[in-house]
Each structure stands twice: as structure tokens, then as C-alpha cells.
């Protein structure tokens, strides 16, 4: 069974999975502790946990899903990038519209 038979999907190693797991654990526990102890002011706390989530998503994509810029995966990346654009429009625009709606409809 050679690596080629798995297409562009996975090229993980024991080391990459362990490293990814440890990073993910740290990136999970820290925001939980921060929120449980209310260590920061509200806005700073929200920004911090959001940043931790983004970093952890990156860790999962790289270490668990093995997304890379190799030529084998080019089309995976193209679809992924397109999805990111759709998500940005969907989430950003909807939230923007609804909050302005709330604001403008206030009595």
C-alpha cells in the first residue's frame, strides 16, 4: 500500500498528529480558562477567544486535514478558497444587515 493510493488527502505522520493534538489542547484550554475566570474585559475577551478559535482551525486544517499548497491538492484549495469567500459574504453581510436593521427599527 503506497502513499499514492490515498490521493491528495492525507500525508500525516505520528509526529504531525501528536503536535497538532497538543497544539489543539493548549488552544482549547486557554480560552476556557480565560472565560471561566473572566480574566479580561468583555471586548478583549471576545477578541481573544475569537483569535484562539481561528488559530486552532488553522492547526486542524494543517495537522489533521493536511491541507497544503502541494500540486496534488490544488483543487481542494481552490474549492476551499471559494468556500471561504462565500462564508465571508454570508456571515459578514447577514450580520451587518441584521444589526443595522435592529438599530434602524429601534423605537
Amino acid at each position: 500500500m503506497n502513499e499514492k493510493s490515498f490521493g491528495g488527502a492525507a500525508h500525516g505522520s505520528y509526529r504531525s498528529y501528536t503536535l497538532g493534538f497538543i497544539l489543539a489542547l493548549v488552544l482549547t484550554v486557554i480560552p476556557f480558562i480565560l472565560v471561566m475566570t473572566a480574566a479580561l474585559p468583555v471586548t478583549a475577551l471576545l477578541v481573544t477567544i475569537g483569535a484562539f478559535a481561528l488559530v486552532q482551525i488553522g492547526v486542524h486544517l494543517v495537522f489533521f486535514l493536511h491541507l497544503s499548497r502541494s500540486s496534488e491538492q490544488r483543487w481542494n484549495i481552490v474549492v476551499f478558497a471559494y468556500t471561504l469567500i462565500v462564508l465571508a459574504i454570508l456571515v459578514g453581510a447577514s450580520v451587518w444587515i441584521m444589526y443595522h436593521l435592529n438599530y434602524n427599527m429601534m423605537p
Partner: protein
Amino acid sequence: MSGEPSNVRAGAEGDTSSIRLFGFWVYIMSDCVLFATLFVTFAVLHASYAGGPTAKQIFELPGVLLETMFLLTSSFTYGLATLAMRRGARGELLAWLAITAVLGASFVGLELSEFRRLVLEGNGPQRSAFLSAFFTLVATHGLHVSCGLLWMIVLIGQIARKGLSRTMSSRVMTLSLFWHFLDIVWICLFTFVYLAGVV
């Protein structure tokens, strides 16, 4: 775009499996959009309590942390399963898959007990728009995990009976994408629903 997409390049063995994986990746990306719409719905309704309880009053973070640990560890053990598969170690693969399934089932169990607690306290999905959006979002993820579990159990049975063929290894890799993806969705869930709700 120069040349053909590598995923579709004909010739070498195993190409159908990489096409299948690519197709499944496209499905996962569309699933992302589904979850994004539910997240947006929750974002819009997250403060529509209708006189009911607020997020801060009903979320219990220690339980959520435990759920997160189960799911995160299951992603890791699934990774170990794929490594065992690549070495051709069928027994080891089955063992890691079984451990992953147990961890996944523990996650679903914890989530169900949380839902049960909320409903018994009178804070079911019909209590307020916030709770409707919360239940829809979290239960959709839980349903995905449950489907993944069912798939995993069937796969364990197939590999145990029929051995580790090329078809089976392709299925293991497909489920791997699905399982890791669900973990990523959960990161967004515990951060933007649970943690942000309690802040």
C-alpha cells in the same frame, strides 16, 4: 489554469479513490455553508431571550470543556487509525477506530444529557428564539457526529469481515475528512456559542 487538475488525471492506480475524496471534499465545503447559515441565524437571535433565560444562566462550561476534549481526542485517535492503516496493521486500525467511536459516542451522550437537562428545566427549543437557534445549531452538529458514528461502526464491521481492501482504505480516508471537519465546526461552536455566550 495550466494542465488538467491533478485529482482527475488518469492513468495511475487509485485515481477513482482520489476523485471520490475530492468529491467528498466538495460536499464538506457545502456543509460548511449549511453550518454558516445556522451560525448566522444564531448570531442574529443570540440575545432574543423573550423573557427566558440568558446564555449565561444555562450554559455549563465544565461540561462543554469535557465534550470538547472527547471530540478533540477522537480526532487524534482517528489520525492514529489512518497511520495504522497505512502500515497495513488491520488490528491496530480496528482498535483505534473503536476507541474513536467510543469517544464520539461519549460526546453525543454528553450533548444529549445537556439537552435533556435544558428541556426538563423548561428551557427547550420552544422557550425563546435564542434557544430555538441554539438547539438547531448544536443538534445539527450532533446529528452529523451521530451519522459519522454510524458510518464508523459499519466500517469497523466491514473491515473486520472483508479485510483491508483498497475500497475500504478509501472509505476510511473519506470518513477521516468528515470526522476532522466536524471537529472544526465544534471549535466554532464552543467558541462563538458557549464561550461567547458566557462572557
